């Protein structure tokens, strides 16, 4: 059984909502990202989404763009992200890692090499923002053969006719985009999100987690109440921006930076 399935099955069994932080690999440097990943698990993360830096992140808002720019300034490339996962696995065998990013770095590495290296490094899932199902056939197949889940997005604009095929393709979990816009924007309408998620339930048994615009414990709680879990990205990357660019971070700084995840965990657990 895949790590993602283990975690999500377990959560379902225990009535636990999933908490999935997103951070950019190499922001402010790779050693700090590694410390942050372990810190996030301690704070209550179930799965970690690890961003692959890309020069042109056209679906991301300003906060994540700046995180990506910091990582690229340090020369962080896809192969470094793989090494990071491998290092993380030395101490953590159970927390699933999902790589999230844009297609071009993967195109340049080559699909086969990417899938082989990802599997070997301990990656569990992949979410490519600019690779909708219509373009994903080849890479999806290669990842599946390598035992890696491909996670897809559903947006408020997704037409009914496509829901079934997206739900059928997505493995691991389904990522529901809470709003029309980019990462870090403001959510306006919880009612619409709730209605859309219940529509999705007709097509999938998989966990439906919500991302984009969840900025604190309160919004995490409100969103978790109507879904199977939440993704917190920009709000965490905003805290990471305050870290000094040094190889070794004080434990106190890691705790302070990941505090938002701990608070979200607590708020979500209160739901039960």
């Amino acid at each position, binding site marked *: 059984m895949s790590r993602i399935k283990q975690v999500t099955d377990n959560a379902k069994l225990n009535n636990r909502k999933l908490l999935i932080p997103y951070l950019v690999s190499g922001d402010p440097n790779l050693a700090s990202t590694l410390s942050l990943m372990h810190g996030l698990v301690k704070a209550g993360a179930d799965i970690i989404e690890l961003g692959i*830096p890309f020069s042109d992140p056209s679906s991301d808002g300003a906060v994540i763009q700046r995180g990506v720019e910091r990582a690229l300034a340090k020369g962080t490339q896809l192969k470094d992200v793989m090494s990071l996962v491998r290092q993380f696995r030395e101490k953590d065998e159970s927390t699933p890692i999902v790589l999230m990013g844009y297609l071009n770095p993967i195109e*340049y590495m080559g699909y086969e090499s990417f899938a082989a290296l990802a599997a070997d490094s301990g990656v569990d899932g992949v979410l490519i923002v600019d690779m909708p199902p*219509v*373009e994903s056939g080849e890479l999806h197949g290669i990842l599946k053969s390598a035992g890696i889940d491909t996670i897809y*997005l559903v947006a*408020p*604009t*997704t037409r009914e006719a496509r829901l079934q095929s997206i739900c059928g393709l997505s493995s691991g979990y389904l990522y529901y985009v809470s709003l029309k*816009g*980019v990462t870090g924007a403001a959510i306006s309408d919880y009612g619409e999100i709730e209605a859309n998620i219940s529509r999705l339930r007709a097509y999938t048994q998989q966990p439906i987690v919500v991302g984009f615009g969840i900025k604190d414990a309160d919004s995490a709680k409100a969103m978790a109440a109507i879904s199977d879990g939440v993704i917190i990205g920009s709000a965490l990357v905003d805290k990471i921006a305050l870290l000094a660019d040094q190889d070794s971070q004080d434990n106190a700084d890691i705790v302070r930076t990941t505090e938002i995840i701990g608070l979200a965990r607590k708020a979500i657990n209160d739901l039960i």
Partner: protein
Amino acid sequence: MSEQESSQSQFDGPDLSGHFGPYGGTFVGETLIAAVEELAEIYGKLSKDEDFWREYDYELKHYVGRPSPLYFAERLTAAAGGAQVYLKREDLNHTGAHKINNTIGQALIAKRMGKPRIIAETGAGQHGVASATVAARLGLECHVYMGADDIVRQAPNVYRMKLLGANVISVDSGSSTLKDAMNEALRDWATNVDNTYYIIGTAAGPHPYPQLVRDFQCVIGREAREQSLEQIGRLPDALVACVGGGSNAIGLFHPFLEDEEVAMYGVEAGGLGIDSGKHAAPLSVGKPGVLHGNRTYLMSDEGGQILETHSVSAGLDYPGVGPEHSWLKDIKRVNYVSANDEEALAAFHQLTRLEGIIPALESSHAVAYGMELAATMKSDQNIVINLSGRGDKDIETVAKIEGIEL
């Protein structure tokens, strides 16, 4: 539609999913999928709607001032000492470049879709001006994204857009140039998708943009083909056009693709020289990848990060290229070559002095290569160079390079 285009041909692409061979496609985030699908459906209908094309043709004739002349450049011909040199005068269009052929068409689509707000990206400002112009003409709200560096380099065009009532938004992320303006326009579109139409300025982006921009620019090649038959008595032996994203080039080339006797040359920006790495020539030295919605040749480092480009002409300063050009390169129907900054500047002066026509720096790249090519051809051969825009916007740049204070 000419007979040429209604018959079955390998050049009828893209296929139904928007691919030209392995290139093109729909590589955008889920939020935008419905919007591009809707546009593809609507354009699929409009492309066969005679009323739509009648309205488009009317605008081209009465507002843009088409057809543009195919001008025999006698003194350039003498200077080249080879083929007879003709210039397709897109510089004479309203707003001074070929860009308006496309913005008119897309704004008419926006109007039919009932979208009151249009957005556009711009590098040199030409597409921004052309978008702001048609927005004023049709009473649409217009927002133009432009790199912060380009805003400084192209101040007159920024003011032009403002005069036309557009809101110019400075983009200071990434390298603060055209590609970043395009990222920001995509972000805006995802946010305001319900009421907004995105007018992409070149034959690139997600399907159906490469197709519809090409179709709107094909008026260049259709006219050039008819004018050649009328003025020369036969088709030209060679076509030359500059390639940034490649909309003027695909517009000239496409109606001739099936004419095997017509050779075609797309001229990329060689910048400080291909070997220097400071250029904008993805077809000459790049590798296929995915950016801004399509798979195409890109300038990218080994890790897949998009590289910053360099060209004296802001309009060619883009790390990608339209996907149909990538395919035409692979099947060897079009030759892709480059002209560097210095060669383009020399051609800028040569055309200005010999013919009294000040060309855009973008078009100067085509003139530079075209003159070189003409010199190798015989005097009974003919060459058509696409003069995609006029150079008034560039005189400050040229003066600055040459140390002249205006």
